[in-house]
């Protein structure tokens, strides 16, 4: 099961991240232009071990000045650009707020599986009635077999799923995908897809579904407390369900808390 963190806030970036983000964006661009391109291909190009590159991209290994020089040279960066990364690194050699101790997908990987059905396929494999059959998966999820097969290759490529004959095995246990890893375009697409799924669910009286929506005035100082309660509720629900042996359906839980005011109301603005 891939856990998708609902917490979404802009990542805090310092210049010391710049070179790592440059590597991530270079890999994402190469993967976008060539579907067969992988982390290993990129590591090969850069002349470093793929596991080292993986750690660098995920922020689990700190970039040294020598590494920036070597990798920048492999990327054929101009001397000015390379020097600016080195200057940033010297100024902020330690701060690296994107480092996350949890096991996380790289940004390009998260982007690759942003569409909702990738996660749905992983969850389907946990059902007793699951059939390792693209047509069956397509019918159950209401998508095309080509969409299933494209997703299948992506999930296998990322090591999140393996095909073992008449079984497909979810290998994503423990992975966390943060919404921070998605581009705004991917987030927009995902939300649009989820909205459509929710609407289709509301129109289906034969299936059990719950939709609640409340508009409420809040004291913004209590927002951290509220988000913590939401996070705890999600954790408790996952804990409750994950040990069940007899899964027979896949649902999606969406919890949204967001301001509906365009700007924060203040006395000053009221007074005009």
């Amino acid at each position, binding site marked *: 099961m891939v856990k998708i963190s609902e917490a979404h806030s802009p990542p805090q970036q310092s210049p010391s991240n710049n070179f790592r983000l440059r590597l991530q964006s270079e890999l994402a661009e190469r993967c*976008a232009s060539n579907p067969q391109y992988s982390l*290993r291909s990129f*590591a*090969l190009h850069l002349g470093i071990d793929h596991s080292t590159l993986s750690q660098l991209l995920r922020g689990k290994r700190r970039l040294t000045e020598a590494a920036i020089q070597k990798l920048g040279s492999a990327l054929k960066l101009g001397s000015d650009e390379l020097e600016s990364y080195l200057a940033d690194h010297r100024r902020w050699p330690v701060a690296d707020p994107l480092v996350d101790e949890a096991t996380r997908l790289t940004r390009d990987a998260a982007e690759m599986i942003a569409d909702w059905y990738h996660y749905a396929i992983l969850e389907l494999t946990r059902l007793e009635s699951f059939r390792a*059959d*693209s047509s069956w998966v397509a019918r159950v999820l209401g998508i095309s*077999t080509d969409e299933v*097969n494209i997703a299948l290759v992506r999930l296998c490529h990322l090591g999140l799923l*393996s095909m*073992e004959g008449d079984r497909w095995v979810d290998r994503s246990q423990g992975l966390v995908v943060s919404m921070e890893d998605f581009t705004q375009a991917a987030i927009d697409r995902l939300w649009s897809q989820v909205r459509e799924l929710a609407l289709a669910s509301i129109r289906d009286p034969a299936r059990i579904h719950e939709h609640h929506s409340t508009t409420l005035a809040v004291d913004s100082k209590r927002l951290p407390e509220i988000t913590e309660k939401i996070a705890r509720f999600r954790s408790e629900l996952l804990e409750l369900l994950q040990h069940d042996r007899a899964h027979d359906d896949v649902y999606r839980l969406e919890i949204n808390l967001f301001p509906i005011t365009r700007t924060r109301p203040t006395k000053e603005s009221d007074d005009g």
Partner: protein
Amino acid sequence: MGNPVTHWQIVSKDPEGAAGFYKELFGWNVDTANGLNYRMIDTQSDGKGIPGGIWPSPPEGHALVQLFVEVDDVAAASQRATELGAAVVMPRQVLPDGDEMAIIHDAFGITFGLWRKRSIIPEV
């Protein structure tokens, strides 16, 4: 045994359109009655040539043709490929019909498949 090319695959953003095109042009037969709904192509050539198939490309990908090489051991061949500088795009998988496959990206920009037929996998 040697390592013959036993299968080819068209990867297309419009797999249905491509299947229709080659069916019309060459009279090839396209059969999807398998676990992955894979568009298996029989060129209907009385045993001449090799069979192929059509697989969907993701929207961000591009059209290409891949060759599949039959090997005794897909995992071992994948390992050997990486030792020679290639990258594994998709590690060994066992398909619903029991065949094994992996996709490799060589150091020269070409992707190809490693394949082992179910019929030659010894029963355990």
